[in-house]
């Protein structure tokens, strides 16, 4: 399957009879000295030829991309954009495509950043031509191009052609003198130019009056002039033709294209009409479709005669029609013989399928309304299309089916639901599956497939209770009927893979419900499944187990699993693959527990950035809450509350009771730290149906702040002991604190010493620190009475101060991300090393450094470090 169409990456060949247009070339030259040149004119004004002529004068510094409607699929657009840049020796990071934002219909910030970085590094003048940019229908994607144009380095110039002004806002560029417009009136042929073309192409000699008629009637519309020239050339009676033309008041293209066809020999007319069904015309394809052997010859002759076929390669094999003329021809064919049009399209589709090109085949089948054939094409190429990342394209095919065809087609609707899920539209997927459910016609295997799709929504929007129910039902079916044949689906693979998906989703569902014990049981089973040998599932299963263990305080195991998962991800999966979210979160929890707060924050930010990009709202919610807890640990309650607010403002509801409870605890703890105990109290008054360690801790902190020992005892009695061993250490710590409060110093120290010994095994430094002033008092006491190294390190950690993170002198504050990068700069690590520590790509680090320098008003890394130190940011 062709990944990249070479014909989109270069201009069509300039016809031999093309008129030299000095005036227009001058305008384009001037334009090329400005950031953006907009060539805007309706169909048939010669934009492509003019740009091609101009590009010829700049060989070597032009990257060409002809966009079309299919480029609304971000994967396709990105592949071609990267290939276009590569052709001009601008190389992007290998993994740039993995930075694409899933399901947003756009390229996304990370990808555009990577392109801008590559352009920065190219460091030489470059012209980027974007032909027909208004054929991209996705406005988020146009916004991406707008940003690319605005933020590319100054020696990169853009030449953009369109029929209708695109929704890119050009006002700012216009005001700064960075915009050049070449519009309809500029592109109209002068009388002299029109005359020249007519003389050259028609092969007739006209007197001045006749020429004047043609020029006047066509009004310098280039395609009309060409049509007139060709028709004149083949007209049996030129004088009559001119007279008729003068007296006719039809739309010029309408009249002339009619004339043109009438004047041609039957065979030629038939040929011209037949091949109009094709977007890309190749000689072999025509031979197959029309059952001839002379297409190559025909095409060449017709092109030479100026019959609107443009050669798009240098060998005379590939052509494209002039779009305007093609529309007329297609319309005629459809009107005269719709059955023939359908047959031709089906034959062409067959040829493409034989040549391993389902993409072109599908478009033709859709035009031919050949729904069964289209469906077969989808099924036969499911795996291939999935692996090429073409899920958005396949979704457009499914949207082309008439509703009647979809309605009772369970298999197609299941595939449809899977695609919607992959494209970040789980709500739509759910609606499709609900309807299938209601129809009550699913086989056991199909029901399992539906449950699997719902299971995968655990990362996005579904309530965990539903996921738990469905995944358990599906797993039971699998256990009962291990040989069940599950339909092949986008994103799902073998039965082993499906079993993994269901098991991991089930474990996650229980985690989100707050049943950590059950979650751990299931996750422990997941890592032992045969499917967990596959890289993606290995990472997902171990990552999930790691996260659960980290939350439990089993830090060594968690770190081990997380490390393993991330190693496998680094080797086998694209960077920033969504599977890395759970092991990264696990690491963040472990880092915080061990009081490596900077590391915890960096990890949380990596999770947040990736979860946003991949629209995995569940992990986004987790990431925000972890970030909040990390800020609290660093003594920054305001930052913690900001994180809590960001969590509440997610595009999806907070994922389940467990995260909701943690979020509430986070806010309460922040208010306690701010001394606003009554607000904290109010937050905790709300009954949490799922008690968590964090909520219990928050209650105890509130109680201890009040100084009332009986309140502490009461809060301790309400501790969720069912959750043990989760939270067991924390419970015992508060028991020790209570003992100390009640005067049993000796007993308290005994308990504390035992706890310290156990915490030391996992490096769980924050056990004492998270218990507020009481915890601190206890551990200080312990360090005096029964000193050891671990206890001392805890006391030392408590004495550290947080870093400043704002400075009044800065006009624009550095973002959290930028601060993380900034803190790494003094250490002299390379960008690659920094990138590794922050879980981003080196390109991203470079982009952040660039922004840091801009905001600090300096240039260069050492200058940035010096300024930051002066401002107290470091």
């Amino acid at each position: 399957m062709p990944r990249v169409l070479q014909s989109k990456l270069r201009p069509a060949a300039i016809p031999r009879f093309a008129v030299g247009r000095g005036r227009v070339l001058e305008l384009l030259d001037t334009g090329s000295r400005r950031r953006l040149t907009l060539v805007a004119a309706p169909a048939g004004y010669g934009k492509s030829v003019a740009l091609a002529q101009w590009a010829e004068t700049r060989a070597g510094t032009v990257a060409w991309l002809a966009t079309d409607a299919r480029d609304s699929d971000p994967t396709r657009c990105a592949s071609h954009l990267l290939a276009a840049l590569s052709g001009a020796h601008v190389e992007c990071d290998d993994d740039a495509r993995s930075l694409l934002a899933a399901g947003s219909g756009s390229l996304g910030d990370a990808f555009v950043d990577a392109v801008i970085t590559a352009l920065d590094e190219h460091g030489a003048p470059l012209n980027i031509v974007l032909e027909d940019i208004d054929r991209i229908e996705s406005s988020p994607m146009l916004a991406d191009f707008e940003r690319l144009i605005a933020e590319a380095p100054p020696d990169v110039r853009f030449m953009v052609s369109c029929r209708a002004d695109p929704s890119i806002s050009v006002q700012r560029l216009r005001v700064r003198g960075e915009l050049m417009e070449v519009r309809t009136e500029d592109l109209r042929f002068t009388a002299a130019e029109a005359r020249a073309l007519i003389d050259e192409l028609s092969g007739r000699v006209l007197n001045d009056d006749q020429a004047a008629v043609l020029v006047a009637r066509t009004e310098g519309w280039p395609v009309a002039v060409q049509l007139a020239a060709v028709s004149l050339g083949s007209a049996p009676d030129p004088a009559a033709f001119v007279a008729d033309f003068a007296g006719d008041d039809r739309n010029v293209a309408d009249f002339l294209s009619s004339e043109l066809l009438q004047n041609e020999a039957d065979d030629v007319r038939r040929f011209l009409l037949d091949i109009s069904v094709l977007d890309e015309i190749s000689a072999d394809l025509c031979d197959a479709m029309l059952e001839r052997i002379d297409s190559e010859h025909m095409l060449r002759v017709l092109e030479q005669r100026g019959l609107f076929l443009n050669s798009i390669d240098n060998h005379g094999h590939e052509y494209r029609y002039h779009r305007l003329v093609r529309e007329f021809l297609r319309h005629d064919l459809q009107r005269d013989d719709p059955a023939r049009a359908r047959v031709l399209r089906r034959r062409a589709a067959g040829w493409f399928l034989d040549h391993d090109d389902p993409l072109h085949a599908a478009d033709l089948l859709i035009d031919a309304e050949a729904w069964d054939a289209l469906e077969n094409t989808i099924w036969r190429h499911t795996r291939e299309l999935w692996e090429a990342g073409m899920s958005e394209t396949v979704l457009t095919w499914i949207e082309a089916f008439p509703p009647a065809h979809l309605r009772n087609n369970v298999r197609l609707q299941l595939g449809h639901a899977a695609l919607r899920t992959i494209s970040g539209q789980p709500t739509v997927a759910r609606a499709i599956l609900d309807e299938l459910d209601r129809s009550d016609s699913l086989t056991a295997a199909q029901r399992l497939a539906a449950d699997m799709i719902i299971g995968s929504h655990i990362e996005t929007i579904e309530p965990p209770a539903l996921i738990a129910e469905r995944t358990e039902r599906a797993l039971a079916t699998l256990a009962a009927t291990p040989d069940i044949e599950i339909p092949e689906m986008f994103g799902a693979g073998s039965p082993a893979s499906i079993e993994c998906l269901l098991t991991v989703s089930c474990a996650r569902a229980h985690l989100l419900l707050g049943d950590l014990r059950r979650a751990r049981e299931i996750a422990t089973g997941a890592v032992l499944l045969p499917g967990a040998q596959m890289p993606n599932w290995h990472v997902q299963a171990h990552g999930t187990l790691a996260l659960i263990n980290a939350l439990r305080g089993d830090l060594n195991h968690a770190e081990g699993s997380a490390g393993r998962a991330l190693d496998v991800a680094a080797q086998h999966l694209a960077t920033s693959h969504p599977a890395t979210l759970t092991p990264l979160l696990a690491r963040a929890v472990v880092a915080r527990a061990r009081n490596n707060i900077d590391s915890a924050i960096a990890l949380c930010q990596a999770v947040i950035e990736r979860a946003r990009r991949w629209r995995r709202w569940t992990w986004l919610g987790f990431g925000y809450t972890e970030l909040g807890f990390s800020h609290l640990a660093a003594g920054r309650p305001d930052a913690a509350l900001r994180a809590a607010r960001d969590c509440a403002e997610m595009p999806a509801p907070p994922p389940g009771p467990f995260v909701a409870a943690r979020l509430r605890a986070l806010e309460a703890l922040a208010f306690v730290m701010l001394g606003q105990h009554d607000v904290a109290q109010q937050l905790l008054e709300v009954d949490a149906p799922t008690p968590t360690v964090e909520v219990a801790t928050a209650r105890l902190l509130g109680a201890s702040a009040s100084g009332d020992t009986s309140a502490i005892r009461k809060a301790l009695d309400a501790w969720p002991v069912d959750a043990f061993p989760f939270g067991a250490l924390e419970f015992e710590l508060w028991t020790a604190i209570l003992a100390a409060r009640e005067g049993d110093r000796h007993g308290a120290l005994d308990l504390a010493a035992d706890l310290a010994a156990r915490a030391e095994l996992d490096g769980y430094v924050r056990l004492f620190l998270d218990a507020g002033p009481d915890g601190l008092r206890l551990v200080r006491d312990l360090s005096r009475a029964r000193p050891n190294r671990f206890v001392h390190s805890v006391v030392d950690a408590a004495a550290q101060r947080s870093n400043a993170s704002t400075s009044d002198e800065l006009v624009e504050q550095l973002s959290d991300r930028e601060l993380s990068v900034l803190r790494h700069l003094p250490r002299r690590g390379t960008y690659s090393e920094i990138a590794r520590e922050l879980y981003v790509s080196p390109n991203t680090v470079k982009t952040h450094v660039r922004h840091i320098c801009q905001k600090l008003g300096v240039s260069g890394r050492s200058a940035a470090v010096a300024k930051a130190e002066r401002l107290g940011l470091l």
Partner: protein
Amino acid sequence: MPGRARYEIVVRGCLSPRLARLLDGFEPRTPSPGRTHFVGWVQDQSALHGALRRLADFGFELVSVTAYPPD
């Protein structure tokens, strides 16, 4: 049905019979010389913009787009 409305789209130039069915659901008329009036019902704004785009694909110059008053 909300959104559904009757429009008249006027373009420059007359139409040959072959283009009579150019716009689905629209009748072309020629009440004045050198102009074609397409009159028809559109389901919603998207359909209207689609029709305009189709006219642009064929190189027609727009003269006016007028909505009939709802009645």
